[in-house]
C-alpha cells in the first residue's frame, strides 16, 4: 500500500460514508496540508475499489456539480483490516525505537 493510498483510505474511513473525491481532497488538504489533483484521487479511489478496500454508491446531483451526481465512497471490512495491519506494523516500529532509546539513551 502506497502512502497516498493509505492517506486516502484513512480519509474515506474518517468521512464515514460521506467521502466523495472533492470532499476527500478538501479533507486531506485541511488535515495534512497536502493538495492533490482530482486525477490523482480518482486514480487511487478506482484502484482501491478494484482491490475491494472501498465500495461506492451514487449520491445526489447538485447545481454546483452541473447537475451531475456525486459518488460516495465507504471503507470495506477488508480496507479496515488493512489499515489495522498497517497501524500495528507502525506501532511495532515505534515501540522498537522507544526500546533502543531506553537502552542507549537519546542523542
Amino acid at each position: 500500500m502506497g502512502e497516498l493510498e493509505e492517506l486516502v483510505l484513512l480519509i474515506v474511513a474518517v468521512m464515514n460514508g460521506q467521502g466523495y473525491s472533492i470532499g476527500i481532497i478538501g479533507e486531506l488538504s485541511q488535515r495534512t496540508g497536502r493538495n492533490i489533483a482530482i486525477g490523482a484521487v480518482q486514480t487511487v479511489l478506482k484502484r482501491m475499489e478494484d482491490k475491494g478496500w472501498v465500495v461506492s454508491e451514487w449520491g445526489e446531483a447538485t447545481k454546483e456539480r452541473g447537475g451531475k451526481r456525486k459518488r460516495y465512497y465507504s471503507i470495506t471490512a477488508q480496507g479496515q483490516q488493512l489499515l489495522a495491519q498497517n497501524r500495528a506494523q507502525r506501532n511495532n516500529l515505534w515501540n522498537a525505537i522507544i526500546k533502543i532509546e531506553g537502552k542507549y539513551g537519546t542523542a
Partner: protein
Amino acid sequence: MALHNFRPPHWPLRILRWILPPEIQEEIEGDLTEKFHQDVNKLGIRQAVRRFYRGCLSILKLRLIFNLNLNLISARHWIILTSIAALILIISIAPFMPGTTIEFSHSLAQFIHASGYLGLFILPLGMLWLIIEMRNEKNQELTRWTNGYYLAWLTLTPLLLIYLMILTKTTAEILGGSITTIIPHAILIPILVFLVSRIQKLKHKANYYFNAIPLYIVIIPLITIFISHFIVENVANLRREKLIILTEPLITAIEKYKTDHGIYPEQLNLLQQKYIAQLPTLKYKGVNGYHYKTSQGSFQLSFEQLWHWNATDVTMYSPQNHVVVKGNYDKISTRYPNWYHYLAD
C-alpha cells in the same frame, strides 16, 4: 450573480466525455465542475479557469483512460490479423525467392511497404478510435461523437487524399502503357470502398457493437514495417550469400585460367567446357546476370539484385580488392573474402 451562473469551459469536458469510460464520466465531470465553482468563489474566475484546465489534464491518467476491454478482440479478429500478416509476408519476400523475374511482384511488395509507412501517419488517430471502440459499453446508446463516425472520417481522409494523388500519377503511367501498375490499385480500391461503406454504417450506429477497423488500422502498418525492416532485409542478405556461394566455382575457374594462361580471361565464355561445364545461372527474381571486366591485371565480377525502394544492391568480387563503387554509398564487406556489396541509386 449566483455561483452556478459561471460555467467551466465546455470543450475540455467534451474531450473528456470522448476519452473517459462512460461509467466514470458523470462522476469526474461533476467533480471538475464542483471544484471550478469552489475556485471561482475563492480565487476568482481567471484562476478558476486555469485550475480547471489543470484538473482536466490531471484526469488524463492511463489508469482512468485505458480501462480497455481486450475480450472484445475475438478469435475471428486474431485469425484475420494473422492471415493479413502472412499475406504481407508472402508478398514482401516473393521478389527475393528463386524463379524468373516478375516486375509485378517487386512493385507489389514496394506498394505494400509504402502503404505501411503511410499508415504510420494515421496511427495516432487510429489508436484514439480504437480506444473509443474498446471503451464503449454494451447496450450503451451512442451518438455520432461516441460511435466513432467523425473520428473514422478524420482518420481516413488524409489517406484518401494521398491515395488520390498517387492514383493521378499512376493513371498517367497506365496511359503511358505500364499495365502492371494497375494491379495494386485493383486490390486497394475495393478495400477503400469497403472501408468507406463501413464508416457510413457508423453514422447510424446507435447501439454498441465492436468495430474492428481501427484495430486493423493500428496493427497492419506495424506488421508491415516490422516485416519490411527485419524480415525482408534478412531474406535479401541470405539471398546474396546464396548467390556468392553459387558463384564460387566460377571464381575458381577464372583463377585456373590465369594459372594456365598468365592473364585473366577477357570474357567468361572462354572458360566454358575446359574450366567450368556451364556458367552458373542466377535463378532469382530481380537478379541480373554477371557483369565481368578485366583491368590492370585484375578482374571484377559482379551481380545486381533489386532492393527496397527501387535501389539496387550490387555485389562484387575482385581478387586484389579493386572494387570500384559507382553509387553514393560506401562499400560493405561480406563474410566471404574479397566480396563486397553496395547500394546504388
